[in-house]
């Protein structure tokens, strides 16, 4: 799933490890999200949205949106 996660992380000067710690997931999970190798669960997507103070759809592109 296309997303702006890497951009948002780099803007804040965070490493993948730091973002993973903030979200309660592994560095590998952050890397998989950024490289579109993993589609997040709704729970994780909401956690990411809260962390960056943005709506989910501002971070993750809705593939079903017309």
């Amino acid at each position, binding site marked *: 799933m296309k997303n702006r996660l890497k951009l948002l992380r780099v803007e804040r000067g965070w490493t993948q490890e730091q973002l993973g710690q903030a979200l*309660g*997931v*592994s560095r590998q*999970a952050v890397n998989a999200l950024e490289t579109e190798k*993993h589609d997040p669960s709704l729970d994780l997507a909401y956690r990411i949205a809260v962390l960056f103070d943005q709506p989910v759809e501002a971070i993750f592109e809705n593939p079903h949106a017309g």
Partner: protein
Amino acid sequence: MSRWNNGTAADRKYVVRTMAFTVPYVAVNVAAIFGAFDEIIGKPAAWVLAAAVAAPVLGWIWSILSLMRDSDEFMRALLAKRFIISAGLAMAIASFWGFGESYAGAPHLQTWLIFPLFWACMALMTPLIRTSR
């Protein structure tokens, strides 16, 4: 060792749990190879030996399930994919060989080889399965 050095707390727990089952498995087998149980081979007591050696297999499966429970959603999905594909491959290879024995005169192999075969498939699949999709 990379799982221990670079892994998460869940990874390190997994290493400890796995070793806890590997050590007795290896110890009993090494003892058997050196003849420690020769007196009971072929007797009913040998079933206890067979159960003792097979029990760690359940422990290893429990270790993997515990690792999945303790991991984040991405690692859990990866582990599940690797486990299912490896188990399927191991069963397919074992079935192929079993029918080879039945129909093609292939030499008999011990059925306990299915578990080392499963781990060989896991080792093969791990670097290949890198996405949860």
